């Protein structure tokens, strides 16, 4: 036992060294496991099941600047000609005779010319339009090959590589929200900027709106701006009699809007 006298110190050091090595190995192993198991950024981290998107539009706030329509074309590479729009802005002018005039020069991208006759004007307002991402989408129903579909998070999309270009979906959309992209010869429409939304960003049109007339959000989250918008406003959707279940909700919508 005697000659083991100095050993406790030495063995103590050894134990410490072993412990250190052990901890280092553990840490390395754990970090290796964590590295393998770590979620791929943006992909696996995003679960469509946890979201259900919609949009709110406050007519009273829209000033018809058309920045949304312009931003949409830039963000999504939509042809610049005035026949192809994923979103556009309409101006309604209702006079005291009850006559309604509607216009949307180039989708409202460059704003609107001054009204020619303001005398006798009863009310006038702007209405941004886009795909309503319907809960019962007639476009999805009619697509013969299933190239247009609704995602789990409530967005209606078109698979460009599968679309045969029959244009039945364009006929079936009651809102004129679809067009045939002349470059790809496939159907195209608003995606709610899905490529941005899955990264936690806002759709381009919402991002640029200077008055906050467009509110994007998640219908599954009580804290989302859209939920708040829906609690604070009386809402209306477009063409409710067609039972398409639009998920673009308008506040202060006028009965003249179709």
């Amino acid at each position, binding site marked *: 036992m005697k000659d083991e006298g100095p050993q406790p110190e030495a063995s103590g050091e050894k134990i410490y060294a072993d412990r250190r090595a052990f901890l280092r190995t553990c840490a390395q192993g754990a970090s290796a496991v964590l590295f393998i198991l770590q979620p791929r950024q943006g992909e696996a981290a995003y679960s469509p099941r946890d979201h259900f998107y919609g949009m709110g539009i406050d007519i009273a706030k829209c000033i018809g600047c058309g920045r949304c329509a312009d931003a949409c074309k830039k963000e999504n590479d939509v042809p610049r000609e005035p026949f192809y729009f994923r979103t556009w802005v309409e101006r309604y002018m209702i006079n005291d005779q009850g006559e309604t005039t509607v216009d949307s020069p180039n989708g409202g991208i460059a704003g609107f010319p001054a009204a020619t006759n303001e005398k006798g004007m009863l009310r006038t307002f702007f209405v941004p339009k886009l795909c309503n991402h319907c809960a019962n989408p007639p476009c999805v129903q009619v*697509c013969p*090959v299933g190239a247009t579909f609704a995602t789990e998070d409530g967005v209606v999309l078109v698979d460009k590589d599968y679309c045969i*270009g029959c244009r039945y979906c364009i006929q079936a959309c009651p809102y*004129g929200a679809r067009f045939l992209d002349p470059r790809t010869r496939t159907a195209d429409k608003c995606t709610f900027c899905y490529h941005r939304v899955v990264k936690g960003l806002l759709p381009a049109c919402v991002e640029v709106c200077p008055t906050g007339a467009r509110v994007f959000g998640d219908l599954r989250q009580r804290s989302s701006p859209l939920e708040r918008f829906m609690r604070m406003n009386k809402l209306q959707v477009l063409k409710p009699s067609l039972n398409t279940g639009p998920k673009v909700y308008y506040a202060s919508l006028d009965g003249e809007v179709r």
Partner: protein
Amino acid sequence: MDPLQEILRQVVGYVYPNEIELHWGLLIVIYPYITGLVAGAFILASLVRVFNVRELQPTYRLSLLTALAYLIVAPLPLLAHLGHPERSYEIFITPNPHSAMAMFGFVYAWYLTVVLLLEIWFDYRKDLVVWSQQPHGWRRWVHRLLTLGVTDISAQSLGFDRSAGRFITIIGIPSAFLLHGYVGFIFGSVKANPWWSSVLIPIVFLFSAIVSGIALMLLFYLLGTLLRSKAVDMACMDKLAMFLFYALVLDFSLEMLDFIHRLYEAEESIHILSLLVSGRLFLSLVILQAFLGTLIPLLILGLISPALRRGGMVNLPDELRRLLYVGSAVLIQIGIFSTRWNVVIGGQLFSKSLRGLTVYKMQLLGMEGLFAAAALLILPLVLLLVLIAMLPPWAEAETHPTGA
């Protein structure tokens, strides 16, 4: 200048910006026109086969071949119209079961193979066997091929052919109704479009199909007979004119019912549709479809055909009657083509905002142009000539089992 820019300047009122361009053009007008002729010609054949209208026997085989020639061409305008025709096979391999259009391939395949090809084969089988035993001529090889190796023409086997043919025709009648009613459904089920969305559309399509098919067969029968320098069977012509009159009365009644119903209900869309009918569709709907294509033929056929009174209300000599029948049949073809035009093009001329009208600018060249459309209308005639050469539908070409 971009044709769309020009259209943009002709827009009246407000249309959604994506609606300025018409998405279904002339080719989609031709598609229901052609399938209507198929269904109509087949229904005429079934009058002979199932309902034993003996006077129409001379048109029986010609009707079947005509239906086949037009059916072969029917999918071509659709194919040419697709943005990606090379992907059209996807309709067969991954059809969307909720889509009316996805069913096209299946309805078409059923009609082509189960109904038309089988019926023609059973009807011609005996003749094919006899023709294939001719000592000379290159056609006997084709005929031999078409017998599919079945050369039994005993009385028992011919009896089976007859009952099989009859059975197929009985299946064929609802199938013909399905084929064209289905085409009507493609339009009638679009709830977004108040001009199309009507439960009557498939039925209107069906009866207009029967009208167009009978009128076409009247023309083809007369042409085929005159070109072969044979005597025209006036009993057959009178019977064709009679059925044409009846079908036209039904078709016109349904169209009027649809019209009056819309007018009486006067829904939200009535203002824009009235503008459409009194403006951009006035020539093709009021003049061509209703007046020249329906009312005038109704009047002529009602007066001179034996439909209302044996020998006709006005008794005319055969030649004159024949001429008036031809005139009516041509007017009816123009009228039915206008009907298809008014449905397909008319349904896209007004905005779904119900606030404005756009215009249709027909192209001359290109896949969807006038020339392509004309070629698609001529192609069935060429196919029919080939079919007639291969399978003569005339009475004198028929063989008798004893001659074998």
